[in-house]
């Protein structure tokens, strides 16, 4: 972009203090890193890395929802996929699911673990196979994992569909016969048919209309109460995240810059980026004129992120120190973590 070519640093540092398993957390993510190599030259040599996830640390309590917000390209989706071991090997860090390191287990064990962790994808128009009837889409994995005896299979699928607001006669139809909201219900049914404990919801409502959004959000909340599910809710719609989550993490360029209880984060945002992000939410009330912090420029390239604090190029409170020294995660209030030099004692 700037016109000058610098040789990027190809070394990958992977130093972190391992965490010990704590019973109350279903998922513990510690200094998780995921880099994608950039290949170049004649022999496809690795010439750099896109640092999609660059040191993300958080814990997720059983039966709660954590919202993950941030601009597009900040690594929200990659975080979700890396936790589920869906995008190859991780680059560094730990992912403990029920105390078990997800990346250390054999493919066979991984297979049975897959039923415990599921994902709902963003776009219900491209994540459903157009050639399979709905009953088959929902039931395929159930049959594959032998979760229910053969003679109960049909009843089981009917029941799952009923839970997600689908009619039994929908079973023989194909995805193109459904509207966006109903397709998203099919995606939810597909994930829940395996009786998971943990579901990554990757922008499940972004592609839907406002009135349909409300239906899907209510459905997700109902199902959470019924089956004691844990969600990682990825979204860029902050009002939806505030509504559904118990805790919120804010991501910027591969880093989790702030995370804590939803109430703390929304009442008292600490990181300059969080403040700017929240001030940008449009309020449906014409009498309110907000003091908006408009961020200059756009998100820098994750292949060549700024030195020091990654946000310093757009930060209003940038200090000299921010340009050289990367801040570390710090607990400012109980359960409220922020990564910023402003809060160093």
């Amino acid at each position, binding site marked *: 972009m700037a016109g000058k070519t610098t040789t990027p640093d190809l070394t990958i540092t992977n130093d972190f203090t391992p965490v010990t398993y704590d019973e109350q957390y279903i998922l513990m993510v510690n200094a998780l890193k995921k880099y994608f190599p950039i290949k170049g030259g004649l022999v496809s040599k690795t010439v750099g890395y896109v640092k999609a996830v660059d040191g993300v640390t958080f814990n997720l309590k059983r039966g709660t929802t954590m919202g993950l917000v941030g*601009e*597009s390209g900040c690594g929200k989706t990659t975080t979700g996929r890396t936790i589920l071991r869906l995008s190859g090997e991780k680059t560094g860090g730990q992912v403990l699911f029920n105390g078990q390191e997800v990346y250390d287990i054999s493919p066979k064990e991984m297979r049975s673990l897959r039923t415990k962790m599921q994902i709902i994808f963003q776009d219900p128009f491209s994540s459903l196979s157009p050639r399979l009837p709905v009953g088959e889409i929902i039931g395929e994995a159930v049959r594959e994992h032998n979760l229910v005896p053969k003679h109960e299979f049909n009843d089981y699928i009917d029941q799952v569909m009923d839970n997600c607001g689908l009619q039994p006669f929908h079973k023989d139809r194909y995805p193109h016969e459904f*509207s966006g909201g109903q397709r998203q219900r099919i995606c939810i049914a597909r994930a829940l048919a395996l009786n998971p404990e943990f579901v990554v919801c990757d922008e499940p409502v972004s592609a839907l*209309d*406002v*009135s*349909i*959004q*409300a*239906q899907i*959000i*209510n459905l997700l*909340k109902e199902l959470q109460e019924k089956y004691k599910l844990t969600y990682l809710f990825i979204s*860029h719609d*902050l*009002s*939806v995240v*505030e*509504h559904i989550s118990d805790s919120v993490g804010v991501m910027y360029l591969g880093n989790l810059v702030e995370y804590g209880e939803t109430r703390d984060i*929304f009442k008292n945002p600490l990181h300059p980026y969080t403040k*700017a*992000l*929240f*001030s*940008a*939410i*449009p*309020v*449906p*009330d*014409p*009498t*309110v004129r907000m003091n*908006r912090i*408009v*961020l200059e*420029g*756009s*998100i820098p390239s994750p292949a060549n992120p700024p030195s020091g604090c990654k946000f310093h190029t757009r930060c209003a409170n940038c200090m000299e120190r921010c340009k050289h020294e990367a801040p570390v995660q710090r607990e400012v209030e109980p359960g409220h973590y922020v990564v910023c030099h402003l809060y160093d004692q």
Partner: protein
Amino acid sequence: MAKKQDNGYLSAKESRRISKENRRITNQYEKARKRKNVPESEYLTQMKDPANAVEFENLHTYFFTDAGTVKSVDGVSFEVPIGKTVGVVGESGCGKSVTSLSLMQLLQRPQGQIVEGAIRLNLGDKAYDITKTPNSVMQTLRGNYISMIFQEPMTALNPVFRIGDQVDEVIELHDGAGKTKQDIKARTIELLEMVGIANSEGVYSMFPHELSGGMRQRVMIAMALACNPRIIIADEPTTALDVTIQAQVLDLLRNLKNRINSSIMFITHDLGVIAEMADYVVVMYAGRVIEKGTAEEIFAHPAHPYTIGLMASKPVVGKEVDKLYSIPGKVPNPINMPNYCYFKDRCEMCVEGCAGAYPEEISLSPTHKVSCYRYYDKQEGGDK
């Protein structure tokens, strides 16, 4: 209406009949549109109120498809005053975009046709009726008087031409008389700077894929503003963007509108954006305007059950609710609309009158109008 077989599918014979009938109808419209040397008097008209930039009156835009006629816009009337922003809200498929495309004459033809009504465009000293304006004249109106910012900045720019060439083309076609290549390039760079692109010389020679979503949307806005149009139609300009970029783009649009004193017709389904941008709000449902008024009226006293439901179903930051309200049911099939109020089947506030014909527009105040039986006894003045 099209006869249906028991299984819900049309027979091949029936489909052929509809298709033939459609061709007969659309050919008539196309013939009228393609005439050459149409005298100006035919499409010259008078604005109802000279303070309006555009007036839609009883606009009907139909799509003649092989499965039947889709009444996408079915009797829409509203005004866009000069220098104001009018927000059009509604769910997908409610006819928001088709209304704006009718104004631009960019409907998918020959299937899509304006069958009735008038769109009056104020050109300052005279006014044109867009529905009767022939293609050749439309060319001079588009870009110069009305221009459009499209929804998807990713697909609206041509990937094989450089940004500079694409903006240059707009200026050359619409405003290029007597200008040299250098003049046009200078104007393009000026425009790119105006929309807040810092590295304007560099962006001039870039391809669309080298820019981020927000930057592409800025380029789209620069193209739309190239000839200082009187009306800017912004069709969901921020839907594909992040909140921080959305805030930048909204700020930009607001400032630019004031600078060139034009009107904006802002189409979106995000009520928050509407509240921020719009002076007037038009709420559409299934091809009809169900409620319109100033932004304060609509947000403080929403009258139509659909508007109320729409507002309740959106989570608001800082407001805690246990369960979001969701409007039951779904939008009626556009090919086979009921003959009573289109919202009746989903409405939880029905009154006795609802079984009757589609409700007329009731004035709650000089600017606030609603189509709902609940307000028949409350209307102001009682002139209707």
